[in-house]
């Protein structure tokens, strides 16, 4: 746990570009909000593997947003149900789902469709907001934070963790 927190701090204070961190968190958010075993989630994971994004933040985003997804589950269902059963879109959906690939992707499921819409809509603002926060952090707080005793003690703890055999 300590190592994970340190990793995040390390990433925040590293030379990694802010977009790499915020994109990692946004990817984690999308994957976490959607049901895990869907083909487009696996495709997203593949992208996360090949794009230079921060994996610690992806993991953090995934864990955090998985919890959010559990809470928002009924909302996702309602969004998906509204979109998939909308009177005016029935013609479109009928031709859309005549392609087996979309059925395979389970987009006809209210939860998958609802969470996909929600995560895609919220991913962009999340990406830009995190990006801005990282810039602000690095600009104003990074040096200050390094001097905070807690941060120092975290570093000591990491050293202890390493010495006691639990470290990387």
């Amino acid at each position, binding site marked *: 746990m300590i190592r994970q927190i340190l990793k995040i701090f390390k990433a925040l204070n590293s030379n990694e*570009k802010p977009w790499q961190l915020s994109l990692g968190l946004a990817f984690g958010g999308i994957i976490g909000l959607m*049901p895990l075993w869907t083909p487009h989630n696996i495709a997203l*994971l*593949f992208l*996360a*593997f*090949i*794009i*230079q994004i921060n994996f610690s933040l992806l993991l953090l985003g995934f864990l955090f947003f998985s919890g959010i997804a*559990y809470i928002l*589950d*009924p909302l*996702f*269902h309602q969004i*998906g*149900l509204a979109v*998939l*059963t909308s009177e005016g879109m*029935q013609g479109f*959906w*009928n031709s859309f*789902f*005549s392609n*087996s*690939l979309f*059925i*395979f992707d*389970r987009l*006809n*499921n*209210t*939860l*998958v469709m*609802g969470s996909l819409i929600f995560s895609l809509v919220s991913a962009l603002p999340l990406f830009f907001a995190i990006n801005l926060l990282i810039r602000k952090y690095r600009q104003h707080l990074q040096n200050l934070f390094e001097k905070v005793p807690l941060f120092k003690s975290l570093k000591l703890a990491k050293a202890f963790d390493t010495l006691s055999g639990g470290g990387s």
Partner: protein
Amino acid sequence: MKIFRWQGVLAFALIGILVAGFLFLFLDGMIERGIEEEGSKAAKTQIDIGSLTTSLLTQSITLTGIEVASPDNNMENVIQFDSLALDLDGTQAIAQKIVIDELQAQSIKLNQKRTHPAKTQKGASPTQETTGPADSGTLGLPDLGGLDMKSPAEILKSEKLETLEAGKRTKKIIADLKNKWEGKFAKDLNPKVLEETKQKLAELQKKIQGGGLTEIPQALQDFQALQKDIQSQVDRIKAMKSELQQDIQLAKQQVADLKNLPQKDFNRLKNKYSLNPEGGKNIVGALLEGPLKEKLDKAWKVYKLISPYLNKGKSPAEPVYVRGKGIDIAFAKTSPDFLVKHGNLSLVLFDTEVKGEIHDLSDNQIVYGKPAKMHFKSDKNNIFDSFALDITADKTRPQSQDTIALNIQGLNLKNTGQAELQGGSANITGQLTITDENNLQGDFKAELNAVALSIPEQKGNELANTLAQSLSTIDRINIAVGISGTIESYQFDIKSNLSDIIGKAVKNIVGDKMKNFEGDLMSAIQSQTSGVLSGANGSLSGLLGQNKILNDSNTSYSGLLGDAPVTKKGLPIPKSGLALPDGLKLPF
């Protein structure tokens, strides 16, 4: 700075290989457990699979040792297959559809004994545990135990008496009529109205006696109006009386009809349960009905279990939202979710193999547009000269129609597994139609030729031994079985030449028994129906009581009419005499 890290592809591929390796090692076991667990839950009976092998390259699955336990008997399998090989259409799996291009089912056996008892599934009705041999599913004469007569008490437990039903109906009709008349009386014969009318009349009389000349024209008008009211009330009461008489007649007729019903019930039950061969239901019927019903009830259970899965087009399951799962919205379907295009089957019947084929078995025939067909055929072998079984499940239209047609020629009775049948052959033909998955209509005929029956002697059972003796002389038996009704409640119409033969043989033996049986049956019916009959009579008395109310009202109003007579010219004549002031004469 580079945007992509290409080594990520390697990492991803590595994870993919690990997952594929895991699936390669454990997929078969996972599917096998999935079918056993989920299939057992869905079928509410235990499903066992000996082994399961998948091949992703050939897109096929092979299962061996499939056993589906009977929901009613945990020591019996409803159906079992030695092996089942499925060639799947992999491209359809992407759209979450199971399309089987070719199916091979080897050694299908029905009603076989299990080696170990099946577990009772959640939500299933408790099963009966038996260690006895499983029913072989063959045809033949049942035990002579079938001739045991049921006691009247047992009969009345399982039979509905028309008297009781009609008695309840009659009581309700009379109660409704009584309520109707009580309502009418409360509305139209309100005692307050009668009192008010009396009061009005008295006031008018007082007015005339004590009033001046000027008030006479007004009083005259009031008297005329009151008289009109009373007359109309009397007319209404007369009309009501006539209507009540009609209702009473109706009720009396119902009660009179009831009195004949116990005799009708007696005749019906006597014909059905008596061993009298002249009865509506013959001895062969009594012998065959039980075993036939048992077999058919088993078949209906399986039919009802399977039917919903083959008719999803008619009644698609209503999706229910489950947290974490959502619901799948079904858009316009162009193909069924489950389809077996063609299959080769081999059924083991009377210990011989019958080859068959299955075509177009789908879960949504309305979308697929073709009925499911199964056909078994066998040429001459040591069991029969020919065998043909055609099953069609047509659910392409809103009203489904399923048919079973059977044609067995030259069935060797010696090999049917019935100890009593020592020889002979049988021709069995017939067809059963199930409309709307509920209504049955079927006729089957069995012609048994050169029959050699050998029924072991039963010590002390004179009836059984006499029958056995009579049957041993028979070499030709015709049995016709008609089935009609619904799956829940169906009737047999069984006719056979055996009835006369056996009937004559038992007539002397069972004569006294029959007399006692009939006497007991009549007493039992009378004791069960006496309450209803007396209840109906009581209700009728209550209705007749309404007549008195109407008569009393009629008398009262007619009396009032007498109290307010009017002269020919319309002048009221009070009871106490004309009360005009002294010395005055009316001008008309």
